[in-house]
């Protein structure tokens, strides 16, 4: 499965063997400057309304069709190797590859800087006017919709898992959901039990 990394690029169905060429030419490309790294990630960040998970899934799977459902989940889980926000990890790795530590800093601050300033502005307005009935009612509507958006994202993510017809996956997903979402148990504790169990189940299947 080592060619899976290049598969997303193969958008043209006519290309019979798209695996090698992109990887070879990628290293020969022009290196983005620190400023380009910053602005590129600022752009990605500012176009990602409603959270980058819903947004990146929409772009990669539904619009550009760079990734299938399964590939998206797998790519996402690969990022889960590393803790923290996937897009943040991606920006750090991407920036570091081209411009070392400063590249990582440029890309990550491009990603986090603009939303940080925006959210402080919004937070300031909320702190002063958050109790106004008008704003209160509008926010209650948006909060309910934001919860709904998340439900839809979960349903879309769960589709490939349910298609596999393996009991372990859905069972582990449900156990994780119940422990955190229903029982409200602490996250580190739950992960300490469920991750080894899930690895064991995956090893049995392979």
């Amino acid at each position, binding site marked *: 499965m080592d060619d899976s*990394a290049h598969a997303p690029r193969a958008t043209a169905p006519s290309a019979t063997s798209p695996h090698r060429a992109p990887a070879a030419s990628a290293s020969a490309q022009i290196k983005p400057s620190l400023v380009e790294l910053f602005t590129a990630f600022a752009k990605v960040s500012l176009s990602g309304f*409603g959270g980058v*998970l*819903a947004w990146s899934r*929409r772009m990669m799977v*539904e619009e550009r069709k760079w990734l299938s459902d399964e590939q998206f989940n*797998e790519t996402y*889980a690969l990022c*889960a*190797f590393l*803790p923290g*926000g*996937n*897009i943040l*990890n991606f920006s*750090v*790795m991407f920036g*570091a*590859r081209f411009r070392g*530590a400063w590249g*990582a800093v440029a890309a990550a601050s491009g990603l986090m800087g*603009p*939303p*940080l300033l*925006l*959210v*402080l502005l919004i*937070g*300031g307005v*909320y702190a002063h006017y958050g109790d106004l009935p008008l704003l209160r*009612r*509008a*926010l*209650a*509507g*948006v*909060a*309910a919709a934001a*919860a*709904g*958006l*998340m*439900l839809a*994202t979960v*349903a*879309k993510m769960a589709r490939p898992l349910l298609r596999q017809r393996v009991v372990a996956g859905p069972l*582990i*997903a*449900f156990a*994780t*959901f119940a*422990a*955190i979402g229903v029982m409200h148990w*602490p*996250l580190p504790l739950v992960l300490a039990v*469920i*991750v080894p169990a*899930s690895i064991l*189940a995956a090893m049995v299947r*392979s």
Partner: protein
Amino acid sequence: MNAGAGGGTLLTLAGFFGVLSLFAIGGGNSAVPEMHRFAVDVEHWLSDQQFADSFALAQLTPGPNIIIVTLIGYHVAGIVGALVTTLAMCGPPAAFAYFVGGASERFKGKTWHSVLSRALVPVMIGLTAASAAVVVSTTGYSWISLVITFGTALTMYFVRVHPLWVFAVAALLGLGGLM
């Protein structure tokens, strides 16, 4: 905003979010229940409603979802709190990605790599589902908010529409005094 937010509070913020950042499998969304448990249930920094508002405002802000921690930090200890919390949530994973990220490329295709990634997919989906449940519970279970929640879920599942349009409609429904 809490008035008496001193160095102790900043340390608590930095410590909690610094540790939490290393347990956030698959991104900020999966850490939402733990944030809620600590900030609302344990420390009483925010009410359920304020947490729901923070989540909604973070969704309305373009950029990574993780920005919700900036709002929580701001709520607890102002601008300094916001910066400390954001750095605590982003710093450890970023450092991790910087030092380990390059190495993981070489492991792609190895058996244990695919086993681990297959093992993490269901955990990540379960965590995201739990986040959705916690977020739904903070919106207060009124019948109209449930209608908006499930209306949005069905719309976003079956129709390809920009989330901002759905948010706008929901805000109007709220403004219309329906909630």
